[in-house]
Structures are given as C-alpha cells and as structure tokens.
C-alpha cells in the first residue's frame, strides 16, 4: 500500500463527523490561502465609531484618497478591539495602524508606560513647529498630555448642556430660564413630580442621574471644580471640594426628597424611558445629541437645550464627558504621510462641518468655530442653534488629568458614592453636613486605595510626579 492508499484507508475508516472536520479543514485552508493578498501599501487608520467611519469614508471618496499614493484605509473596530490592539502593539511589539482614534476610557494603560515607551509619538514638537498647537481648544488637550508631552490631537471638545423635554416642562407651566443653580432647577421642577397616576411614586423625575453612573458622576464633579488628580499627577480624591460635592450629588438620590431617576443611557429600555419621559432633563454632551436623534426620533421637536445649572450662583455651567484622540504609534514607519492625512481629517473645515451635521460633535479647532453651520437652527431641538450653544461653552470645559489611574479613581469615587448612599439609607441621615463628613471619610479611603496602587508601581511612571 502506498502513502495515498494509507490516507484513503484512514478516511474510509473514520466516521462522518471526522470526515466533516477534514473537509472543512481543507476548505478553510484553501479559502484562507486564496484570500491572502499582498499586503497593501497604505496608511492604515483604526477608528471605533461607525459615524466617524461614514464621515471619513465619504471624505476619502470625495477626494479620491483611496487611490492616492499612499492611499488611506480606514477600518472600524470596537473600542475593546482597539484597546487590545493598541496594547498588543505597545506590549507585544506587534504591528498596529499608522493612525488610531483612541477613546479616553481606554487610554489609561498607555500612560502607565515608563517615560520612553508609551509607544505613541510625542506630537508637541511638530504641533509647535507648524503653529497648530494654539489652534486647538486648550482644555481639550489636557487628557492627552503627560508632563510636557502630548500623545494625541483631540478630536472633540464634548461640552455638556442640559437637554430637557420642553413639551413636559411647558405642560406644567414651568419657566426654566431662572434655573441658574441646581437647587433652583429642582425647585422649579417640583410640579413634574406629582403622582397623577396615584401609584405612590412620582410619575416623573426632574433629572436622569444615579450615583452608580460613573461617567455622569465624574461629569458633575468636574462641573463643580472637583479634581481627582493635581497637576503633578498626585491623587486628590479626598480634597475639597470633592466631599461636599459628592454629598450634594448623592443627596439627590435619597429618600423622599429624591429628584433623580436611574435611566440606562444606551439600552433599548433607556430609550423607551426617555420616550415616556421618566426623567425630564438629561446631562447631554454634544455627542449624545446624535444618540437621541437616532434612537428616539419620536422626540424630535420636543427637546430643548440650556446651560447646566451651576452648583453655586455664578459657577461653571458646563462640564465635559468622554473624548477621543488621534494618536500615532511609534512603530509606524509612515509618520509623515499619516501626519498629513491627520491634518486633513482633523483641521478640514469641510469635515468639521460634516462632523457636526452627522454626529452633532463640535470641532476642537477654534479657528473653525465661526463656521455658519453652528448657527443653523436644529429642528430636533426646536430650532435652537445648538452648535453655537455648545461652542459658547467650549472654552469653559474643565481640564482633566491624563493619569493612568484616572479610571480607577473614578471608580473609587463611584464606590464611595455607593457606600455613602447605603450609609445614608441605613442611618436615615439626610443632613448635608453629616453626609459631607461621611463622604470625606469614604473619599479618604478611596484616596488611600489609589495611592497604594500607585506606590506598588516600580516600573516608573515619571511623566507627572517628580
């Protein structure tokens, strides 16, 4: 018996299932081999947002960048996918793209690297050389800077306004123009909490928020000038004004005086709650507008925007939430081409306009702010020129630290808030000062937790602290 004969015998003696495995093996090998084309010589860009993808692709088609030399190729991945690949590039020395849009939620571990090996190119020199640095909204650079290095150019500003259901507010005869502080806002909104269906709970709440929503918790802390890290990257969780702020925010969620309701932000159930109007007002960063638009089209013409009520009279009336940077892995060998594409995508007036039209996001490039597109009335928001409203807030958005421990710190604060609420419920305490005192104990605990974690780190993170 010759060798093929042996194989033939083998295939004959095995069962159907095994034959099936052999068959699919051979087939998949053939397909994979057939699909293995030459690696194309292109500038590769990874992004996570389907909206950005549509936008860039349209731009590429319009300007024929797909067949330029070298062409620009944009692929869309999940945030999770981008994270594991950016880190794969940094840790494993694997090839990643030439241009990557990185969301703030996943940038932390990058800044954990020892000084020289962040794996991303420091862009400050080239930005300064080309005079681009001043063209960006200054506070929007802060999350991507470490010491005097800058690891990405900002894609956005993401200022926050308050979106509210004008139909409901009007039906209750409420005039919100006097709602300059949160206290005043909740007071004016009392009428919406009437229990008209008599089921023992208010039909609606003034604001959608819960202390377990870490992003919104961070947003409110930032609005009230709370800081989680100082300029040198040292944690400041338990420093003023954080304890008092946390106590105020958590007290919104407590007992008979409760004024907020927990509504999922991105799930179908949340969309249905918003359509029903379970909450009247919502913390609304610019990008959230397009989420509303696409998931709750029924609400078109029923929403209005206004500046956030401040914590104190005269205080900050906006905040910031989320953010994306465009970064350049050091492993890429086509920085120059990538850089010129990046400038094209990030500073083009045309794309900034499109970005606003399709995703409601305002550009961080200050020189583009006088574009008339931002003054166009938006029918979804009852004809408000919402672009202008967001831009007016842009220079006032709070700065954020780029600490690798930032996310852990936010979670530690959220845990402290959860504990505080539990403690308040258990003890029946509603007194603001007692809550603040308790908050400061809990925040001190959170602070120690972060400090311990930072001390553990031996591979130096010398970017901030000396």
């Amino acid at each position, binding site marked *: 018996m010759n060798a093929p004969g042996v194989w033939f015998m083998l295939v004959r003696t095995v069962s159907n299932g095994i034959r099936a495995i052999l068959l699919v093996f051979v087939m998949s090998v053939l397909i994979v081999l057939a699909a293995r084309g030459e690696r194309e010589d292109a500038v590769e860009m990874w992004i996570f947002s389907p909206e950005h993808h549509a936008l860039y692709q349209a731009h590429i088609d319009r300007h024929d960048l797909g067949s330029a030399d070298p062409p620009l190729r944009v692929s869309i991945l999940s945030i999770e996918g981008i994270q594991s690949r950016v880190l794969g590039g940094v840790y494993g020395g694997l090839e990643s793209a030439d241009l990557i849009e990185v969301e703030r939620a996943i940038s932390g571990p990058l800044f954990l690297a020892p000084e020289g*090996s962040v794996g991303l190119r420091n862009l400050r020199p080239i930005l300064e050389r080309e005079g681009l640095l001043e063209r960006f909204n200054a506070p929007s650079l802060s999350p991507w800077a470490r010491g005097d290095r800058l690891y990405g150019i900002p894609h956005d500003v993401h200022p926050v306004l308050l979106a509210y259901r004008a139909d409901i507010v009007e039906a209750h005869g409420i005039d919100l123009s006097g709602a300059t502080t949160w206290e005043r806002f909740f007071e004016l909104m009392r009428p919406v909490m009437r229990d008209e269906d008599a089921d023992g709970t208010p039909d609606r709440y003034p604001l959608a928020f819960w202390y377990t929503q870490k992003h919104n918790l961070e947003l409110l802390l930032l609005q009230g000038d709370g800081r989680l890290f100082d300029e040198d990257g040292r944690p400041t969780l338990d420093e003023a004004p954080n304890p008092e702020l946390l106590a105020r925010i958590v007290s919104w969620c407590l007992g008979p005086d409760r004024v907020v309701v927990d509504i*999922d932000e991105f799930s*179908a*159930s949340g969309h249905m709650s918003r359509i029903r109007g379970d909450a009247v007002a919502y913390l609304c960063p610019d990008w959230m507008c397009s989420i509303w638009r696409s998931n709750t089209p029924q609400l078109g013409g029923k929403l209005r925007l206004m500046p956030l009520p401040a914590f104190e009279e005269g205080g900050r009336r906006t905040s910031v939430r989320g953010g994306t940077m465009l970064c350049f892995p050091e492993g890429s060998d086509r920085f120059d081409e990538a850089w010129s594409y990046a400038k094209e995508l990030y500073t083009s007036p045309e794309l900034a306009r499109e970005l606003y039209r399709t995703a409601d996001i305002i550009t961080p490039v200050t020189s583009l702010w006088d574009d008339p597109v931002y003054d166009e009335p938006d029918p979804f928001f009852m004809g408000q020129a919402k672009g202008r409203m967001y831009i007016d807030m842009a220079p006032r958005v709070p700065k954020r630290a780029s600490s690798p421990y930032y996310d852990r710190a936010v979670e530690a604060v959220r*845990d402290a808030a*959860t504990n505080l609420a539990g403690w308040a419920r258990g003890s029946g305490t509603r007194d603001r000062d007692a809550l603040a005192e308790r908050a400061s104990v809990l925040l001190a605990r959170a602070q120690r937790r972060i400090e*311990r974690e930072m001390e553990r*780190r*031996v591979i130096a993170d010398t970017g901030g602290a000396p």
Partner: protein
Amino acid sequence: MFLAPFLILFTLFVLYPAIQSVPLAFEQTYGPGERVRVGTRNFAYLVEDPLFWRAVRNTAAYTLGTLVLQLPLAFALALALNARRLRGRAVYRLIFFSPQLMGIVFASILSGLVFEKRSGLVNRALAGVTGNHDLLAIAWLQEHVMATLVIISIWLYAGFNMVYFLAALQSVDPELLEASEIDGAGPVARLRHVVIPSIRPVATVVVVLAMLGSLQLFELPYVLLDGGGGPNNQGLTVVMYLYQSGFRFGDLGYASAIGWALAIPLIVLGLIQMKQLAPERVGS
C-alpha cells in the same frame, strides 16, 4: 518517535510556561519587554488588594451557586431520565445538553440580549405572564449580576452534567437495586444506600470538574458585561482580574501572582480528581 513531536511541543508550551510562572510572579512588567524583580511585593499587595478580594468573593459565590443549585438540579434531571422505560430519553438528553453546543462566548452574547431590561426575553415573559409591567425594569445585568450568572450557568451546564450523572446511574447494577427492593427498601432508602454509593466516584469527578470550571469563570461575565467587571465590579472574577492585570495593565508578573493564588486550590481539586481516576491507572 511517536512521542517526540508531542514531547517537544508539550515541553515548550506546557512545562516551560508552568515553570516560568514561578519567577514571573516575583516580577513586575510592562508588557513582556520591561521587567523588574520585585521580590514578594506582588503577593504582599495581593493580600490587601480590594479588587482581588472582590474577585475572590464573586468567584466563590458563583462556585457556591454551581454546587448548591446547578449540580443538584443536574442530578435530579438525571434521576428523572433514568426511569426503566422512559420514552424519548435520547431526545430529552439532547435537548438538555443543547445549550452546551452554543459555546460560552456565544451563549453569553445571547444571554446579554435575553436578560436586557425591557427588551429582553426574561423580563418581557415575566411581565407578560404576571401582567405586572414593573417587572420589565428588573436590572439583571446592572444590579443582580451574580444571580444572573448563576441562572445562566444552570441553563448552560445542568444538562451537560446530567449526561455524566445519567451515564453513572445507568451503570448501577440492577441486581443490587432489585435485591434492596426485595428487602423492602423504599425509593429514598434505595437512593441513599445503593445508588449514591455506587455512583460516588463519578459524582466526585463531576463535582470536581464543575468546581474547576467555576473557579476559572471568565468568558461569561466578560462578554456579558462588555469586557469589564460590570457596575461596581459586581461581576469581576479572579481570572478576569488576572486578564485585566496582565493584558490591560501589562503586568504579567502580577497576573502570574494571581494565577498562583488561584492555582493552589485548583491543584488540590485536581489531585482529588486524579485520586478518583487512580485505580484505573494502577490497573493498567
């Protein structure tokens, strides 16, 4: 010659990493490239790391759920299918086993959709049956993470373990059963004195395997909770924490330390299992 290919790869990909995991647990790394020896610091931090202990508590709760809910249910199903003449046994067995075919990642994706607030099958069915629309708002994946995981694991694994139990039950000597029946033993007594003793070895292996699996829980919560521990880390498990430490924060050393902390109970369980399989080993 038949052994050589296996041995080479086995040494490279099993033995070598197993040995490497020891020195690695005493290092701190940033990716595999940057390494610093830190002595026992990893373990010192581990014993007071609140996240680690939260992961341990969650994992223990899940394992407990497996032991007190999933396995008894699997055994009960096996008993029910073990009737002397039961029509459609093969069909039942296939149906009960079928969730296992989905594979854990895909089952997790499906579970995520099934347990969604409002849109999910579970809440919509509950609300539909009871007529109480508040049930639509049960936040399984936000507030009852561990309970949800246990429910999913019952769906996923009870049928799988049932197949083992059933095989063992079917091999119980019928003469022994008849003899005890003639002696006047009732069904409960027969279960206690004849059935359970004769399936004990298999049962031990099933319990040990289920515990080994439960303690290494990772994919289910990871996929269900979008790659994190979920709200307040309610769904953080030990292996997930290992993954986060090693591959999100790049510290393979700390990941190894976590690996060893988990390995010790696992190895003990493994030895128990080996002991059950041992008679056969000696026999050959």
